[in-house]
């Protein structure tokens, strides 16, 4: 049953992304149709585009409705019960009411959208879609952090709804702009629509930045939480993507101004940039979905990492590598996880250098660099989880109950497929027009995946610092994908210039992985129980991985450098909390407990304290 419930958590997260994309298509479509396609002005001349947008709205609404419904069904299953009191409690629950409203609004949008496909001037359908979109934006706020907030909730509901409306109108609106471009508008039609779309998006961005800042202040609580918590790091990632999006939007704004002045038709670059804006927009929405499941920084309390601790994570690996020399790549010295990261980084760095050599015309044979990617794919798929087959005791089939192992296996497969396509394109076995898009597509998706993967363990400092380096790597991956996409889709000098971004980005990813470092885990990961040799305590009998409430004192930085608590024996760990045994019952809190009397160097000569198997 526990395994089934874990799977439910898993599906909830998938549904959150599905509903986000669906809602963006609906709200963005309504905003774009109303403001840019002239529906508000009752301008019938753009009817064919309204019809096209309405189709996308209807599809998005269906997607959202199915996602919301499935979310309710899974949540009801997760809280299990059958008594009349339980049924009444479900009906009274906040989540049930919020999602019911969202389902109803989505159904209205789907039906009204379908009517607009047939008749774009159908006024009741237009009103239905608009009302449905507003309700989806408002209702979404009631499923956000605002709903669980312990203080005054009304201002947060209002800000969240505004934030959603602005973000979805912009990012979803750009998707509808791409649809408009795909329908081959005439220069006159483009001249009518593009300036209005530009004004809509500029307005949305203004609201988004203003409201987003207010929400960030509320949910972070301090500057230190921006740097020292998962929530803050995700926000920084979101800001980075938004900055890139804004840069592209600014370039497009200039192009749109030219069209508005009548200085010629829209350039190909405008449409291609819009395509990438959609891709980056989806990545931004995924970060937003992750933020919704991450405890706000203000709640993490004493588990906020300092700037120096964060800086240490990024620099210590290189210091160690300088001290270790060649043994820095010895698995027995550095441990499995660091070894995996460093080998992957080395392979990527070599690939990037070869790609640069190929682009610079130094060595034609260097175009075979994707073959190294094949090696990387096999390495990730087989070596990332040594607790599982073929290295550990966990069987091949058995290993598929752990989402993280499945993720690594699929990542390995994906990298192999990616390697094949890119190699075939570079050696002219496949046309770059379509097969070439596998590289940017996978980079964009992989980057987004890594952003989400980065924060699997939320809140506590150890998990945050452990996976901190994944975030900049993910952002570089997304940028590399965007660069390669534009290189392929935008012929000429512009495309070639933009194409120079991805090889250095790939090199950056490789170097960050080579310099990878992680704090040591003092509270064991239950999955390590699958590693050989057999541990004295079988953690499979414990429930879940260490969390904020159980991981107190798991590690510590000392002023003279990083020191961590030595992994305690199960008996030691069991009795360390027994010190205060008389008087009132002690309570455990997020503040690290006092059991911090066992320190050891962070980088001992032996591998004993680097047994973390995660990568």
């Amino acid at each position, binding site marked *: 049953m526990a395994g089934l419930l874990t799977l439910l958590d898993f599906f909830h997260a998938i549904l959150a992304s599905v509903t986000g994309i669906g809602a963006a298509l609906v709200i963005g479509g309504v905003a774009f149709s109303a403001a840019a396609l002239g529906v508000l002005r009752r301008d019938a001349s753009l009817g064919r585009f309204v019809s096209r947008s309405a189709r996308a709205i209807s599809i998005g609404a269906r997607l959202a409705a199915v996602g919301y419904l499935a979310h309710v069904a899974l949540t009801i299953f997760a809280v299990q019960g059958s008594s009349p009191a339980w049924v009444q409690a479900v009906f009274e629950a906040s989540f049930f009411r919020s999602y019911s409203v969202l389902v109803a609004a989505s159904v209205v949008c789907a039906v009204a959208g379908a009517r607009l496909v047939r008749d774009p001037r159908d006024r009741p359908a237009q009103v239905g879609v608009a009302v449905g979109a507003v309700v989806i934006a408002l209702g979404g706020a009631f499923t956000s952090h605002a709903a669980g907030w312990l203080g005054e909730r009304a201002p947060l509901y209002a800000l969240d709804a505004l934030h959603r409306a602005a973000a979805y109108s912009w990012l979803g609106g750009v998707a509808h702009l791409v649809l408009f471009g795909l329908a081959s508008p005439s220069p006159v039609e483009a001249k009518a629509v593009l300036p209005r779309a530009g004004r809509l998006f500029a307005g949305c961005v203004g609201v988004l930045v203003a409201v987003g800042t207010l929400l960030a202040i509320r949910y972070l609580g301090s500057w230190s939480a921006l740097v020292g918590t998962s929530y803050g790091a995700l926000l920084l990632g979101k800001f980075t993507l938004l900055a890139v999006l804004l840069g592209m939007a600014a370039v497009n704004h200039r192009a749109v101004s030219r069209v508005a002045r009548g200085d010629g038709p829209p350039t190909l670059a405008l449409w291609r940039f819009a395509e990438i804006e959609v891709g980056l927009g989806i990545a931004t929405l995924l970060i937003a979905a992750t933020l919704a499941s991450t405890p706000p920084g203000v709640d993490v309390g004493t588990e906020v990492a300092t700037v120096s601790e964060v800086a240490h994570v990024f620099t210590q690996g290189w210091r160690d590598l300088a001290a270790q020399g060649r043994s820095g790549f010895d698995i027995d010295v550095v441990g499995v996880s660091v070894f995996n990261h460093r080998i992957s980084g080395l392979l990527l760095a070599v690939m990037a250098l070869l790609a640069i050599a190929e682009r610079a015309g130094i060595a034609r044979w260097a175009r075979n660099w994707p073959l190294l990617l094949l090696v990387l794919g096999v390495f990730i798929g087989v070596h990332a989880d040594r607790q599982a087959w073929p290295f550990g005791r966990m069987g091949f089939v058995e290993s598929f109950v752990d989402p993280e192992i499945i993720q690594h296996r699929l990542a390995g497969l994906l990298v192999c497929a990616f390697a094949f396509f890119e190699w075939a394109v570079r050696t002219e076995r496949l046309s770059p027009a379509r097969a070439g898009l596998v590289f940017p597509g996978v980079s964009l998706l992989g980057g987004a995946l890594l952003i*989400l993967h980065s*924060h699997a363990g939320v809140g506590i400092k150890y998990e945050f610092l452990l996976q901190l380096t994944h975030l900049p790597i993910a952002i570089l991956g997304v940028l590399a994908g965007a660069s390669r996409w534009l290189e392929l889709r935008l012929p000429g000098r512009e495309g070639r210039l933009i194409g120079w971004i991805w090889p250095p980005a790939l090199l950056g990813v490789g170097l960050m992985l080579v310099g990878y470092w992680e704090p040591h885990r003092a509270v064991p990961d239950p999955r390590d129980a699958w590693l050989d040799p057999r541990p004295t305590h079988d953690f499979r009998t414990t429930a*879940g991985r260490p969390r904020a409430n159980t991981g107190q004192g798991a590690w510590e930085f000392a002023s003279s450098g990083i020191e961590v608590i030595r992994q305690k024996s199960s008996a030691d760990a069991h009795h360390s909390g027994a010190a205060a045994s008389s008087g009132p019952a002690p309570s455990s809190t997020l503040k690290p407990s006092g059991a911090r009397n066992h320190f050891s160097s962070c980088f001992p000569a032996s591998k004993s304290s680097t047994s973390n198997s995660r990568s």
Partner: protein
Amino acid sequence: MGSSLGHRRFVAHACVGLAFALLSIGLAADARAHALLVEAIPAEAATLEAAPPNLVLRFNSRIEHKLSRAALLQGEDGAPQPLAIDATATPDRLIAALPELAPGSYVVDWQVLSVDGHRVAGKLRFQIRGPG
């Protein structure tokens, strides 16, 4: 040629599917925790002379009391004994009366639903040593 094209198209579609599957699994990772347990009475791994009158779990967000539950087990493999949840507790607390407990090891198996629809579950272990 047609077959080769079809095969390539299939591979391309498979890759896209695989990418989305990966993405979904990546997304899944974020759902493991949402509401944070910020305080527990009794504390994790505490050893006490006697059981406190109430189990108190405090979270960083509001919870649905009527859809949350807790059970007490004697030892890891004991029979779960459901605890009555106080539906009138403050929004961030799960409070349940604890019975008199004999010396031994106990586990509280709890599950809460935050008001934004996230299920969070966990276990809390403590020991009763008895007086003296």
